[in-house]
């Protein structure tokens, strides 16, 4: 039963790689966006906020199709990227990472934004009277104090990315070894005769990954809280 086949291993490792890359690339961007939404007023802020949340409310297949239209090989942006920079997303694992990143972005941004909003602005003022330029106020006061939220956002984003299915399969299809993640492998297996045992193995693996992510996030959050308020 627990003999995980090479194809299954490929799907598991690909899922981990896709979700990790998606989270690592999306995090700096997510922090920047969260900071803008939490600390700045600008024209079109409501529109930006809505656009970020769109993948959360749109059917995933719609998001995937929109990605295909814009970033596909013949897409508006995709064609230019491929011709000028040689970057191709469609039917590549990088495209899977992109789809996962877009889908998990709202979940990543939200806890970060909330934790930045919770940072006492009076501490930021104190930092500036001590000679800290705005970006150093951010790196030395705002970001360390918002760290628990950043970690929570990363774990949530990672968990969402690991489980993402609809947008990924629409945008990059289900190619074993290239774009077949755990989710799309399970989907393929349950429509294959005698695929049940393999599907079940992957289900157990994805439960284990999700649980480890949650335990890790809890551990990080506790450590961060202790660091902030403790001894």
């Amino acid at each position, binding site marked *: 039963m627990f003999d995980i086949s090479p194809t299954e291993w490929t799907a598991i490792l690909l899922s981990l790689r896709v979700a990790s890359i998606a989270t690592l690339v999306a995090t700096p961007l997510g922090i920047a966006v969260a900071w803008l939404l939490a600390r700045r007023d600008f024209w079109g802020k409501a529109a930006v906020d809505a656009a970020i949340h769109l993948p959360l409310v749109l059917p995933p297949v719609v998001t995937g199709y929109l990605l295909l239209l814009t970033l596909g090989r013949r897409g508006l942006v995709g064609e230019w990227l491929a011709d000028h920079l040689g970057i191709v997303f469609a039917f590549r694992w990088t495209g899977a990472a992109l789809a996962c990143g877009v889908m998990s972005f709202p979940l990543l941004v939200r806890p970060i934004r909330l934790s930045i909003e919770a940072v006492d602005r*009076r*501490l930021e003022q*104190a*930092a500036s*009277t*001590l*000679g*800290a330029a*705005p970006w150093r106020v951010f790196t030395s006061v705002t970001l360390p104090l918002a760290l628990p939220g950043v970690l929570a956002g990363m774990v949530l984003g990672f968990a969402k990315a690991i489980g993402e299915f609809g947008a990924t399969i629409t945008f990059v299809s289900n190619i074993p070894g290239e774009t077949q993640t755990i989710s799309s492998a399970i989907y393929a297996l349950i429509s294959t005769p005698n695929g049940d045992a393999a599907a079940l193995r992957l289900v157990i693996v994805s439960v284990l990954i999700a649980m480890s992510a949650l335990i890790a996030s809890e551990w990080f959050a506790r450590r961060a809280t202790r660091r902030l*308020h403790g001894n």
Partner: protein
Amino acid sequence: MVRAARDATLARKLIMLRVDVSKQLGDFKLEAAFESEGRVTGLFGSSGAGKTSLINMIAGLLRPDRGSIAVDGEVLDDTASRLHVPAHRRRIGYVFQDFRLFPHLDVGENLDYGRRMNGLTEDAARRKRVTDLLDIGGLLDRRPGKLSGGERQRIALGRALLAQPRLLLLDEPLGSLDEERKEEILPYLVRLRDEAGIPMVYVSHDAAELRQLATQIVMLKRGHVTVFGGVKVLSGAQ
């Protein structure tokens, strides 16, 4: 000749603070103008008189609608020429009523913060002088969350001093302390005035406190400067 030279050194030592600003804050209009050369300028007034808004403008945390602010002849704000030096480039220290120590840094790191941010070289002697002056040498490894109000305020004073400001603003530094703690801090403030050699603007609604510390008084009432002069202008005030 000798006289002129001595006057010049004195003038260099005494800070010259020139403020002439107005700012609309809700229904309240702050319109204040004064010049001060004292070692400790006491900004006196009841709560709601606009004291904190006024020193926030001196610190650069708040922008005046109109007017100018200059310290030692350097213009920091001038709305006519759209000049506004941001807070972090003013080298003006600020000690807040509510301490505002960084909770994620220990006491030593809090004290070191201003030096790091201003790119100043490490100066163990200066650091020792300040920690001795404020008796905080034994607290360096602690976290602010574990300290008493009096200890926190002494660390906030040390933190501001070690950033080597040219002017130190103190906004009701005893305001959130009980009587016992006030008595604990007051001697340190006197020592600071006499030994640290940094001119200060000291905000308070307590005339007794200012009588002990200030060398000049600016009295603020409903957003306007009503009296300006020596400490004797406080007689009758309470």
